[in-house]
């Protein structure tokens, strides 16, 4: 049994995961069961950062991966994000990098900036 703290939400449930069957106990929602099993097989994280923004009012645009990407690829994703420059206007959800670092995840804007 592997003991984990669930990071799916701020509640932080204390999970126990069976290393062979990947059965999860201690979770208080279905997302916890998915997290617990994944964390042992293929841990994933959402990466959030900022990119350079050409705009009248703001210097940086916040971004995120639109799905959790393999934990081992976090720094590779960060290196891709560091290359991006965006011109306003931009809308929340706009895709800035598709299939970032071969993860199937996209880097998207997390706020709208008009000008």
């Amino acid at each position, binding site marked *: 049994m592997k003991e*984990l*703290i*669930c*990071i*799916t*939400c*701020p509640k*932080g449930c*204390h999970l126990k995961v069976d290393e062979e069957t990947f059965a999860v106990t201690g979770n208080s929602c279905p997302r916890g069961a998915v997290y617990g099993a994944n964390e042992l097989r293929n841990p994933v*994280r*959402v*990466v*959030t*950062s*900022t990119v*350079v923004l050409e705009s009248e*009012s*703001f*210097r*940086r645009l*916040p*971004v*995120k991966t639109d799905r959790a990407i393999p*934990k081992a690829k*976090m*720094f590779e994703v*960060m290196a891709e994000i560091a290359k991006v420059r965006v011109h306003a206007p931009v809308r*929340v959800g706009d895709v800035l990098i598709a299939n970032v670092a071969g993860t199937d995840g996209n880097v998207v804007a*997390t*706020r*709208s900036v008009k000008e």
Partner: protein
Amino acid sequence: MTKAELVIIGGGPAGLAAALSAWESGVKDILILERDRQAGGILNQCIHNGFGLHYFKEELTGPEYAGRFIEMLRGTDVRVRTDTMVLDLTADRILHTVSPEHGYEAIRAGAIVLAMGCRERTRGAISIPGARCSGVFTAGAAQRFLNIEGYMVGKRVVILGSGDIGLIMARRMTLEGAKVLACVELMPYSGGLNRNIVQCLNDFDIPLYLSHTVTDVRGKDRLEQVTVSKVDENRRPIPGTEMVFDCDTLLLSVGLLPENELSRQAGVEIDPRTNGPRVWENCETSIPGVFACGNVLHVHDLVDYVTAESMRAGEAAAKFIQAGGETGDGVELQNGDGVGYTVPQHFRRDVSDKLQIFFRVRRIYRDAFISVYDGERRIARFKREHMAPGEMENITIPAMFLKHITGGPLTVRIEED
């Protein structure tokens, strides 16, 4: 003098939610005063995800969470005035404001919601010894530099305090290429959420030193070294346990204080336990028609809870405007064993359907009970598997349980048997 039915001080998550709920309750003349150049408050710099699971049932980043509320308010006539400072607030609900666009302006409000949020404790507040070199930042200031202005504040970092902002910044600085050498916590437990220990420290092998503190800061112009020592059970440094870290940056995540200068100016009664206003169950302060919600009332760990509380405050402010103030007998709430404070601090006996009480425990508990006593008589009991000071607790007491109380203070305490 300009007039407004409802003035909300602060356009962060608390102010935005209070405005939305007051609007939905039928108040049409609502003005939000925001000191920054944009609404959204601290969420704008909290670019990480994990917000909104309760309220939106999905995981959002801070800017997305704020954006949703700003978008919802666009469909209303709520006015948001940015770049506006409130200089003074009086007990008869007059606000003295100043802004580049309107200059000095006095505004008379039918009701007011205080939603000014909180501030970080600084180096001065915790008396760290050593040199006065540059390179010592509060975690939130560093977060603003990095996420809003686009500047890294350092390359080799030690973090004092394990509050959530410090943990989030440990990860953020690491992802941006800095080396975070240690997170140092005075208490024997973390002040932040468990999930943040896992995903911000453990993910990057950043050591967390519990029961340790910074005992020296060295550097001529810029920070060069900090000394970290273990502390005993009375939180006094133990000689001989010193560790020296070569670093250029020290981030402080050592607590938040509700910002109540304006509340105090107006004469709002402040609770020394929360450093926020003493409120009734509907978030009304000691001044009728003045309500408080969010981190100005007590420091929350989840924005979703700020939203829920602020929705109640906005609704109560609407009711005050439409139907006048609440009356009825008050009952005091006391914090008993293991409980640091309660919000609300008192409630009206004829509370409509239920009474929600928020508080923090003083230490970590496993398999314990939250009990509510009316004198010697226990009127309610709630089981909890795990409680920690870093996680706000709440209980809901149905109104029927409150029908037969004596009217003396109710006490909330933790019981381990």
